[in-house]
């Protein structure tokens, strides 16, 4: 399975997943549209390669900002509690 090259076919990509091949192909298409994957057509075989820079950007943007908001909005609750207690005294 661990082929030492960066390109692989849709079938190879689908191997680790339980999903049906058409589902995998659909997912790959989404990645491709998003610029995360590039496709090279080699006769009848389509080979895919990761656009790693885009991938890292997308993943980190999402997780970073999600975490920021989750934490910040929790802290906001504490600040509001403090303000209310202060107001009652």
């Amino acid at each position: 399975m661990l082929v030492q090259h960066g390109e692989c076919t849709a079938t190879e990509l689908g191997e680790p997943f339980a999903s049906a091949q058409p589902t995998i192909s659909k997912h790959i298409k989404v990645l491709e549209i998003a610029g995360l994957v590039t496709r090279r057509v080699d006769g009848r075989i389509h080979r895919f390669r990761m656009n790693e820079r885009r991938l890292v950007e997308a993943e980190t943007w999402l997780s970073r900002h999600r975490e920021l908001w989750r934490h910040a909005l929790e802290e906001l609750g504490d600040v509001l509690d403090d303000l209310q207690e202060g107001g009652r005294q």
Partner: protein
Amino acid sequence: MSEASNELRFQRVYPARRDLVFRALTEPELISRWFFPSADVTMRVDAFDLRVGEAYRFIYSFTDGAISRVTGKFLEIEPPSLLAFTWTWEPPDPHAGVETIVTFRLVDLNDSTELTVEHKRLPEAYRRIFTEGWPQTLLHLHHALSKRTRDDAR
């Protein structure tokens, strides 16, 4: 509707009056007490001119000495209901130059306040992923592919 649309969206209910929540969102000394990503990051409000078209700037300091700055301009200010501003990290942040928009909406909910946060106008590449759904499966696929790519680079 799930969150897997073209934006990050959060909704929280705080047992506080709406004007107080709005103050916490718009007063620099209060903002610096909550608007940071983790407990070990300190945040300083470097600029905050709360007028439409004017700017704010936040500086985040990390324990390893790294600093990140985010800046933007106020787009809409309607106390105590709405606040919208642009959000752009400054270089050398990895997300520098990506202009996004944050919107806070506040609604009365009995004696509490419901706050809705939207962070949107993400770059096309991110937007597509959100709108198409299946983020978890996609993430697994990313990992499978990126492993291949890294193996290839060796």
